């Protein structure tokens, strides 16, 4: 039995469903030093804003049981520098369409970033991050309100012909409602989920560990939450869903695809095990064989 790992995402063929998630893979270069990143289905690069951003004060990272908190706050060199420097550097090591992670503080910001990235042939998809918990204005504020989410998605929709993928926040009561609002606003796909809002306190200082007090929780501990979100969303809308959250094994990938995901993103696992994506892709055929899966396209549980 030859395992068929191929899948497609909004009309673009993927050699396999495994992508690296935004913010955990930089612009790919650190990982290209360790393995050939062309084995990936694709990856989503760091959230990009119109202007350069330093992000939040440090400490921005806290260790947790089976997971981590981050309050990076969308540190990035700004869309112009991304196009002038990061994407040309990436082109030398990655020859597939890459996913752009589009961020901003207003619908106009998102549209500005998307309009500029629309000119880049390397960019396959626009992943619109309406779910970052680490910025004061914008980010999660858009992804937790159906009206605001729709506003951002339609602003991006107007300036690009590339597939628009809304990245959803789990920090909502009804994620299906947000998914439907994004679909109605013209999204071609959805990513679920971004990080969960969390917090830790240092017992010795009695102060929050993160300088920003709260941050986004990710890692294996959030897998069941992400899986549940994918299940709910894929039954509420007729769009491909990228399952993201806590994935660290080929079995997790299969489980996520059974829940309804068309593809998956691996995030925090890249940080603790730099070869995580390579390992998962390598393990996937064996895991498919073990569970009698011939093709990933037929996995979804109806």
């Amino acid at each position: 039995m030859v395992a068929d790992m191929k899948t497609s995402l909004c009309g673009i063929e993927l050699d396999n469903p495994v992508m690296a998630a935004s913010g955990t893979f930089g612009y790919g270069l650190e990982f290209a030093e360790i393995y050939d990143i062309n084995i990936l289905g694709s990856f989503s690069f760091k959230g990009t804003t119109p202007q350069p951003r330093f992000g939040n004060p440090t400490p921005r990272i806290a260790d947790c049981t089976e997971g981590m908190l981050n309050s990076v706050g969308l540190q990035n060199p700004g869309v112009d520098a991304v196009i002038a420097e990061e994407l040309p550097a990436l082109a030398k090591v990655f020859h597939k369409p890459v996913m752009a992670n589009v961020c901003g503080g207003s619908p106009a910001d998102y549209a500005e970033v998307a309009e500029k990235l629309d000119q880049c042939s390397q960019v396959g998809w626009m992943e619109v991050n309406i779910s970052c918990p680490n910025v004061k204005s914008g980010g999660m504020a858009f992804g937790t309100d159906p009206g605001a989410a729709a506003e951002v998605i339609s602003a991006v929709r107007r300036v690009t012909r590339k597939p628009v993928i809304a990245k959803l926040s789990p920090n909502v009561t009804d994620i299906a409602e947000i998914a439907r609002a994004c679909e109605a606003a013209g999204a071609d796909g959805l990513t679920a989920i971004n990080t969960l809002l969390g917090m830790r306190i240092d017992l010795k200082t009695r102060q929050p560990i993160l300088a920003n007090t709260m941050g986004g929780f990710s890692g294996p501990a959030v897998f069941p939450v992400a899986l549940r979100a994918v299940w709910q969303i894929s039954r509420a809308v007729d769009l491909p869903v990228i399952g993201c959250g806590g994935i660290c094994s080929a079995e997790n990938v299969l489980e996520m695809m059974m829940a309804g995901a068309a593809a998956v993103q691996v995030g925090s696992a890249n940080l603790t095990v730099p070869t995580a994506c390579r390992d998962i892709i390598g393990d996937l055929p064996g895991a498919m064989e073990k569970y009698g899966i011939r093709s990933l396209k037929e996995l979804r549980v109806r």
Partner: protein
Amino acid sequence: MKNTILTIKQQQRIAPDTCEMVLQAAGTDAAVLEEVRPGQFINIKIDGFYLRRPISICDWDAAAGTITIIYKTVGQGTEAMSRMTAGQELDILWPLGNGYDLGCLPQRPLLIGGGAGVPPMYGLCRKLAEAGARPQVILGFRSAADVFYQEKFQALGARVLITTEDGSAGIRGFVTDAMAALGTGSAAALEPGSAEEHANESAYDGVFACGPEPMLRAVDQNAPAEIPGQMSFEERMGCGFGACMGCSCETKYGAKRICKDGPVLERSEIIW
């Protein structure tokens, strides 16, 4: 960067709350050691903890395939490490960070380490001594019981001044008190040497430091402005190899990642 399994060769407590661990690389894995620079670090996976723990490379022996680390037990991760024994394996990423730049070698370097900042100073001191320099070293600790590696630095040919906060060993106070004592009779009383050596103490031509940030800032304020310097910083890390932006700091030349563009920063670029 490589992901390698190292075997614990030996581990011993060298001061209260301070452990020295020697790790053995097998076969070709030891090739990494050819490229190690002082000031670089390793990132250690510890069973039961999600994020790795960054610890500086204290010393290394490329021929033997070993590295030495020294760490303080300050929390659950380092406590768990301190309970490990010879023969156990550790999953590490290495070598990480830029390390100290020995491009233009000072002849009379001043090395200053405070507490958990002492270990990287040892590998640096060895490299500088091997290159023909005669390092002056200042090591700061809380109390006499916490002092470690004084003789090992001396065995490299370095002149060593110890400071303790309670005055139970060496100079009472902080490393800056030892900086002030350099070239004066009080340093001579603690450290034997020729009259010429003592006269030269205060004429250092490069400063290297690692320790808590208040110490680094104090060292910067006390060192003459024209002396070049390199200082090693700590920050909580998500990855340790430049992918997550968890450890950024602002410098005069823009944002840098402590884990990849650091942990060593040039004195001239640091924004205090």
